[in-house]
């Protein structure tokens, strides 16, 4: 394995972790916000450094130099590959913008310490490839929202019940897989169920609605936007699950995508709308991942990045509006356009990017996802298109209700602040640049998709003679993955 030139990964995790400890002690919210921005920005720069370093090395996988954690734990837990390298700066940026764009009237209610802790846990989760490390970090990652629910005195039962279920399923599932080997029915079903709970697949999605209702919008945003369930699916489920388990997960996710999209069209509150859109988009990512053809997997990985970016921006815009007008109902028209035309444009742009509108980052990803889905089964493709169409209606309806209508009367200026302007422009620029020049991003996602399928085929070959239980990857899984495998395992065709 190749070493990076600096301990980027450890630094990107330890900096926000240290920040969480320091910022959590501060009494004055303004000071806490300022320090949180510094820690989060430093972490973001480390992830950018890691990305550039990895790219420059041209390696398949890389870990930190100096191996500080490896010396402590006995093995190297933090390893990055082509799949995850561009995701880390993106996730870090989402946290940074969320912290930075927090307005003075929100700082009292928003916990910067917990957000930094969440940032550290998310980056650690995405940088980790050790299965038990992933399990532990995924479980720990559920704690910050719980702490916030508790600190606000809001009901925790719905969230707690679902997250305990998630932790139990995840730990139990991976224990079974460890004990019985890849392909074990009980283990993979439990793992699949854990992924379904964490992603919010119907009927296990109620916790997400409850979370959006009861925590700060920013907290819900940074907890949901990274689509951690997709990461668990890629690292734990996809390599070991039989095809029929993946098909089952894809079917449930598909149902969720359409159901949540339909729900988004009738919501009467902006937070619930955002929740439904997140649910639908996360489910679409899972559909693509579980369909497990090269095209759909590439599409899903592209849509995953697009969702982080576009839904992150969409959430930040809604949060900025909430900071001005309080909880936003979706009844009648708010008439906010004249006050904040930039926010209106950003809202429309991020919303449209999330549905894969031409010229935005999500366009090619959505095309690939539909193409791959039709390749797997035509009905899946039609359902994916239906979900996208409904999401599009929901987004434009929300735009109309929030920004059109008789001008909102306010005694104070509701104009966009410089820091918000920077945040929305940064996201808009990334969405548009990614949309106009998609080839580098798509090529990198395709490479990652092939690598994932290659690992899946490799694992099935490794375990088949020993166990005889794992069903082999479907022939259509990936011709290119097989051809890659043929290069590494010359006798695959004889096997």
């Amino acid at each position: 394995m190749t070493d990076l030139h600096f301990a980027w990964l450890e630094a990107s995790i330890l900096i926000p972790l240290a920040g969480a400890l320091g910022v959590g002690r501060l009494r004055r919210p303004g000071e806490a916000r300022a320090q949180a921005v510094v820690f989060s920005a430093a972490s973001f720069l480390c992830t950018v450094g890691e990305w550039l370093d990895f790219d420059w090395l041209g390696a398949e996988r890389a870990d930190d130099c100096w191996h500080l954690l490896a010396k402590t734990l006995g093995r190297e837990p933090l390893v990055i590959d082509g799949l995850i390298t561009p995701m880390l700066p993106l996730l870090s940026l989402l946290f940074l913008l969320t912290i930075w764009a927090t307005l003075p009237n929100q700082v009292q209610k928003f916990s910067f310490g917990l957000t930094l802790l969440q940032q550290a846990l998310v980056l650690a989760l995405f940088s980790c490839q050790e299965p038990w490390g992933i399990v532990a970090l995924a479980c720990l990652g559920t704690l910050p929202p719980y702490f916030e629910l508790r600190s606000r005195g809001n009901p925790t039962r719905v969230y707690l019940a679902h997250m305990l279920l998630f932790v139990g399923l995840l730990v139990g599932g991976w224990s079974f897989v460890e004990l019985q080997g890849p392909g074990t029915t009980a283990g993979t079903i439990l793992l699949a169920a854990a992924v379904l709970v964490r992603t919010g697949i119907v009927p296990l999605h109620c916790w997400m609605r409850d979370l959006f209702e009861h925590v700060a919008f920013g907290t819900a945003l940074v907890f949901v936007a990274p689509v951690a369930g997709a990461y668990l699916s890629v690292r734990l489920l996809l390599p070991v699950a039989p095809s029929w388990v993946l098909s089952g997960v894809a079917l449930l996710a598909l149902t969720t995508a359409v159901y949540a999209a339909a729900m988004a069209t009738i919501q009467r509150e902006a937070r619930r709308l955002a929740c439904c859109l997140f649910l639908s988009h996360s489910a679409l990512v899972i559909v693509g991942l579980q369909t497990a053809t090269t095209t759909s997997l590439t599409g899903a990985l592209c849509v995953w990045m697009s969702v982080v970016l576009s839904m992150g921006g969409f959430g930040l815009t809604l949060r900025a509006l909430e900071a001005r007008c309080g909880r936003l109902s979706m009844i009648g028209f708010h008439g906010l356009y004249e006050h904040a035309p930039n926010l209106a444009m950003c809202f429309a742009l991020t919303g449209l990017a999330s549905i894969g509108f031409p010229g935005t980052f999500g366009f090619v990803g959505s095309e690939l996802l539909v193409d791959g889905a039709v390749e797997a089964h035509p009905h899946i493709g039609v359902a994916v298109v239906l979900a996208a169409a409904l999401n599009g209606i929901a987004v434009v309806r929300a735009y109309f209700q929030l920004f059109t209508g008789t001008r909102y009367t306010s005694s104070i200026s509701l104009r966009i602040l410089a820091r918000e302007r920077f945040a929305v422009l940064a996201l808009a620029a990334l969405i548009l640049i990614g949309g106009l020049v998609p080839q580098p991003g798509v090529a990198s996602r395709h490479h990652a998709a092939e690598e994932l399928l290659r690992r899946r085929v490799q694992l099935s070959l490794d375990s088949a003679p020993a166990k005889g239980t794992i069903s082999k990857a479907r022939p259509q899984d990936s011709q290119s993955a097989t051809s890659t495998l043929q290069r590494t395992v010359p006798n695959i065709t004889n096997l």
Partner: protein
Amino acid sequence: MFDHETLIKLLGLSVVAAPVLLLSVLGISSLVGRPLSERAIGRWVKSSTAAALLASIAILAIMLALGTRHAPIEVGSWVVIPDYHFSVKFVFDRLSVPFVILSLALCGTIGAFATRYLHREGGFNRFFVFYALFAAGMTIASLAGTIETLFAGWELVGLSSALLVAFFHERAAPVRNGLRVWTVYRVSDAALLVAAVVLHHLTGEGDFDKLLGDAPWPAGYAMLSSQQALTVGLLLLLAAAGKSALVPFSGWLPRAMEGPTPSSAVFYGALSVHLGAFLLLRVSPILDLSVGLSIAVACVGLLTAAFAALAARVQTDIKCALSFASLVQVGLITTEIGLGLRYIALVHMIGHACLRTLQFLRAPTLLHDYRTMENAIGTRLPARGGIWAGMLPERLHVWLYRFALERGYLDAWLTDYLVLPLVRAVEWCDAMELRWIERLSGAGADERSRRATPQASLDDLL
């Protein structure tokens, strides 16, 4: 010195680049909060549209001079991975060149008209951002050489149209109508996307030259079986019906008249409404493969024309009357396409678009024009009665009148039998979810009342 192929390529790229540049300039300046002045916007609009129009006319001249009937321009592969490619390609042929010249000429006319018509209007900059989006979409869709490129342009046109219908956004009615238009367009977009993907899988190609043969339009032969052609063709017909307001989606067209007159004229009277017919013309070799499909296209067109002719007679405002008059012609154009009369349909489309633009632009001064005519002849204009009025039984007459007044009950039918049942079902699921969450969380009365959702939803908006 350039050879003629290089020259056509450069000119062709200019045709596409000019509206895209206009969109970039207006869009970015608005996004960063530094909108251009009215004068600067006017200059950008005129210069970019004129540049694109002149370039397209130059291409026409070169093609006529050289006898070239088909000039594809490969911009390159936008996305290439081993199992998928998205190439950007534009085609200049007997269909796309007249249509793009028509689009740019009308966009230029309307651009010049709107700079005066909307002078000092609050949404001046917003109008021209949407206008630029529309112009870019129309140009891309007209010249698209692959179905994916056509889809991209198609979506841009749809979004700009819906936003322009809701242009006067201080009032609720235009916004509701904008949402209605957008909803129909999403159905249409979904149908086109599914058709594109199915075509891609059936033939392995999204390139029109390979999909429909490289013979110049309207010749060409699609490598599909009759059944496949019927399936794909019906999806394309659904897409075209949504975009061109054919039956049963005709209800959105009069609603679109809520937008400012320039946009009504160029978009719903002249260009946007013809885009569905353009799509059918572009894929006409597929229609040739299935008699059933051709009959379906012709029937939808005839039905639309008959319905619109009836509805147009009872409209009480000039823009709605003109919109239904447009629909009559669009229906006839669609029928011509179904009957295989490709050139007649194209000529009909161009002539109709020009006439209708003129009528729409004169609409705000209609009363003035009538008075001028009456002053000139020295008496009132004669009231014209329909020839059928005396021939129809009274009851049928009344029924037809109500049918026309209610616009064929199409909107009511779609709302009552399609939208509302779905909305009610989803609302029921929503209520069940809330009850389940309350039960899980053990929420008290306070929490329940806080969660209680007011009764207004999508159906109110529609």
